Structures are given as C-alpha cells and as structure tokens.
C-alpha cells in the first residue's frame, strides 16, 4: 500500500508537488498522469525516500518513508525516471549488485534471479555493458532491478518510455501479472498506457491533484462519450435527418475525412436510433462506431482547465 498525506515539495518559489494526498491499495494499478513538469517524478522521488518532502508525509506498506526509511525501501521496488544504471557494469554484474544490496542470496536468490531474467527476456544480454544497451533494453534492466526482491509495492516512473510496441506489450503483460496482489504506482504521459494498464487514474498538473477516477469514468466525462460516428458518402442528407432526432444534441463533420460524429444529449443513448434512421433512409454507411470517449480530450480539458481555475495571482 502507498499512502501520502498533504505531500508537498517546493523548490524556492516553485511548488512542484502541492499537498498531494493519495492512497493506493493492493490490487490497484494507479496511473499518475500529467503533463511534463507536473510533479509526477518529484512525488515519486519523495515516496521512494530520495527527496525529503517540504511538508506532508508518505507511507509505503505502513512504514513512514522519513521515519522508517529502510523498512519502506525494503518493501518498495522502484524504477527511477530514465532507468539509471551503472554504465561500466554488465547487466549480470548490475543485477548481482542489486541482489547483494537487497540481501538476496543462496538457492532462493539465484532462482529469483533466473526467473526475473527470463520474465524480462534478458538472457541474451547478461554479458553486455549497461552503457551499450539500447533505450528499451535499459528500461527492461531497470524493471528487472525493481522487481528482483519481489516487492509488495512497485513504483515505476515511465516504465514503457522508449520501448517499441512489442516491448511495451511485454512490459504491460508483466505489470498485469504482477498487479494481482501488489500495489503498483506508475507515472506516464501516454494515454494509451492508462487503458492498457491502470484501473485507476490520478491526474496532476502543477503539483495539484485534479482528478481521481477509473479510466472509464474519465472517458465518460468526454464530450465524445456515447457519440456515434460513421463515414457516409452522402453525408449532407444524413446530417439533416439526424439533426431532427430528439436525442441528438449536435452533429459535427470532420473537415479532413468527412467522418460524421453525432453527439447525444446528456444521458441519452443514440446508437440504435441513429442506426435505424440510417437504414430507413437507405444510406450506405461504413465503420459505424460507438465512441467510448476520448481520454486525450478529457486530459487536456482537466489539465489546462485546471491551470486557469487554480492559478493564483503572483
């Protein structure tokens, strides 16, 4: 479990993290989402015990990170931003170093080492120097380092940054498998990641918590939630007919590809009505789709709206 209470960090006049209170339970994968410079990494560094909070407290598995740092650090697996590693060491040496630091040894230690190496597909690169690794490989070594001691709490700062789609998929599967009994906090600015990984999202900007919801709840806040979109050659006629439906709030046509989006009035379901109407009119439509809502739009709305709403006069 991870818990923070009014966690705050100032750099001079700049408040990087502003009274952040979150609580992540076992089984949850919480995505910490925010624009660059929102304070995601700073918040994680405080939870990991690297930075001292200006005020507020944080706990990992019930251990106060300032008062019982060693207990908190033992319970935590942490991938810092950029997955740093000692360049002159080979992957094997590096992971052995982490094992020694974590007090992993003997039969059990080696079995764990082999399992992690296999999980992250590092068998072939064990002899390579960390300096020579590609960005994606480095990230995987960083992940291996974080999960070696099989921690109950995992905190990953941009775990899939720099990975290709296949590697991303592999890492997400790994996190999925690990998620069951663990508490996982990941930071990202990739919205697709939220869909793929998280069952809870916290959005922060300028160090402040702006939203705390499930991905589906966030999508429901989108203007596009429940909208129906399709492509049709005779779009103009359809537009006129659809506009007369009582449940429809508005219609937009994409100026680039001519795709038509029909927006429902709040709380209305319009897919059936739209489909029936189009069929009755004998219009040929393709790729008709019920929109779930667009996270990027919600994200933009929350993070940029949040600035104007919370900005204080200097």
């Amino acid at each position, binding site marked *: 479990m991870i818990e923070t209470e009014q966690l705050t960090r100032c750099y001079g006049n700049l408040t990087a993290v502003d009274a952040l209170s979150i609580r992540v339970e076992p089984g949850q994968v919480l995505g910490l989402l925010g624009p660059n410079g929102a304070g995601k990494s700073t918040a994680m*560094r405080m939870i*990991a*015990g*690297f*930075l*001292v909070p200006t005020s507020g407290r944080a706990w990992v598995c019930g251990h106060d990170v300032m008062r019982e*740092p*060693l207990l908190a*650090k*033992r319970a*935590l697996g*942490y991938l*810092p*931003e*950029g997955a*740093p*590693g*000692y*360049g*002159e*060491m080979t992957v094997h*040496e590096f992971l052995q*170093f*982490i094992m*020694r*630091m*974590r*007090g992993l040894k003997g039969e059990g230690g080696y079995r764990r080492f082999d399992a992690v190496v296999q999980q992250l597909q590092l068998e072939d690169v064990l002899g390579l120097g960390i300096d020579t690794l590609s960005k994606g490989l480095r990230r995987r070594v960083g992940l291996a*380092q974080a999960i070696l001691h099989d921690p109950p709490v995992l905190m990953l700062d941009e775990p899939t940054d720099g990975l290709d789609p296949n590697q991303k998929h592999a890492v997400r599967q790994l996190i999925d498998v690990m998620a069951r009994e663990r508490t996982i906090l990941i930071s990202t600015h990739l919205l697709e990641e939220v869909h793929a990984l998280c069952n809870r999202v916290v959005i922060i900007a300028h160090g402040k918590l702006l939203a705390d919801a499930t991905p589906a709840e966030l999508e429901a806040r989108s203007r596009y939630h429940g909208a129906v979109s399709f492509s049709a050659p005779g779009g103009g006629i359809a537009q006129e007919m659809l506009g007369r439906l009582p449940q429809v709030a508005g219609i937009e046509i994409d100026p680039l590809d001519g795709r038509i989006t029909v927006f429902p009035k709040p709380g209305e379901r319009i897919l059936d009505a739209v489909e029936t109407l189009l069929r009755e009119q004998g219009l040929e439509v393709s790729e008709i789709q019920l929109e779930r809502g667009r996270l990027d739009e919600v994200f933009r709305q929350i993070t940029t709206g949040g600035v104007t709403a919370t900005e204080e006069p200097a």
Partner: protein
Amino acid sequence: MNPINAVLRRELRSYFVTPVAYVFLVIFLVLAGILTFYVGDFYERGLADLQPFFVMQPWLYLILVPAITMGMWAEEAKGGTLELLLTLPLTLWQAMLGKFLAAWLFVGLALALTFPIWITVNYLGSPDNGVILAGYLGSWLMAGNFIAIGACLSALTRSQVVAFILTALVCVLLILVGQPQALDFFQGALPRRLINAVAHLSMLRHFEAISRGVLDLRDLLYFLLSALSWLVAGVLLLDLKRTH
C-alpha cells in the same frame, strides 16, 4: 554490514573495469620510484631508510587521490544512479563508508605494490623495518584523510572537475599550513596561540612524526578524527541535497 560490502565491491570493481585503477597504479608506482631514487637522492644520502620515499608521498597523493575521489558522488549525481543507490535499502552512512573504504583499500594496494623499494633498501643495507612499517602506516592514514576530503567535496557538486580542484586545493592547504614559510607569513597578523593551533592542523607535521617511527596517540587521533569529520560532513551534504 552487507550493503557496505556491496557498495565497496561495486566501487572497487568499477576502478578495475574502467582504466582508473591501472592509470593510477602505473603513475603512482612510476612517480614513487622516480621521486625516491632521483629527486630524493636515495643513493647519495648513504642512509638505509625510506625517508626520501615517504617525504614525497603527500605530493603524490595531492595529484592522484582527487582523481580517484572526484567521481565518487559527482558521477552518481550526474548519471542519475544516485537516485537508484539512495532508494535501495541502505543508509547514507553505509553508502559513504562503502565508497570510502573501497578507495582506501585501493590506495593501500598501491602502497603495498611499492614493496620493491623496501626490498631494495633491505638489500643495500639493514634499515629499521619498524620505522619503515610506521612510515607505511602514516602514509596510508594520510591517504585516508585525502580520500575522506575528496569524498566530502565530491558530494558537493555534480562536476568531477570541480570536485578534483576543490579536493586538491584543500589538501594542499592542509599540507602547507604547517610549513615554516606559511606560519611566518601569519606571524605578525595572528596571535601566537592561533598560529600554534593552526600548525597542529597540518597533515605534514603529523605524518612526519609517524614516518620517523614515533607512534604518538595524538598523531593517530588526528588522522582518525579528521577523516571522520570529513566523512560526517560528506554525509550531511548528501542529506542536505535531498532537502534542497
């Protein structure tokens, strides 16, 4: 103990994987030889001892020790590994001690590798080996002090060059402060008591006492306390960095 050991082993290994260790060892041994035999008039003195060898040691350390210690924390801060290291379950003290001991053991190794000079002097005459042993001990203690200073100042900055220069500067001050020339310079300006006190800070004075074979508890305490103070300051600096 385990994390200290892990850090120590990692540091030592990194010396030998990168050219640092070999460059250091070669230059240290070659210079020690040259300084002893040519500059120090080893043969012409006609005395069976290692004074010319030990007299040159502070100046060797002055150049070479900052080269080992400059990266100790500065490199970790720059490369981001500091965050990795300090979020592993170890205390700042354990990290500092591990790094310090690695460098100290390494210089100990370099010092041990000067044994041919010791063999030479034993072959040529019959020196007092107790005095020589004391000299080695004094030299190693002094190196430990230089390393502690370097470890502290490396924690101050992200730049290895800055760490090198600061360390060399502090070390040269600590060597020179007890020299008669330096003391004469302040003779008029400062009260006599203060000058005496400053003179006692001189590393050279304590080192020379030990290397003459006089193992005074005060000299040993000076080296131990001074090294400890620098290490404490280094740990405090690291801790301060987490706050600011």
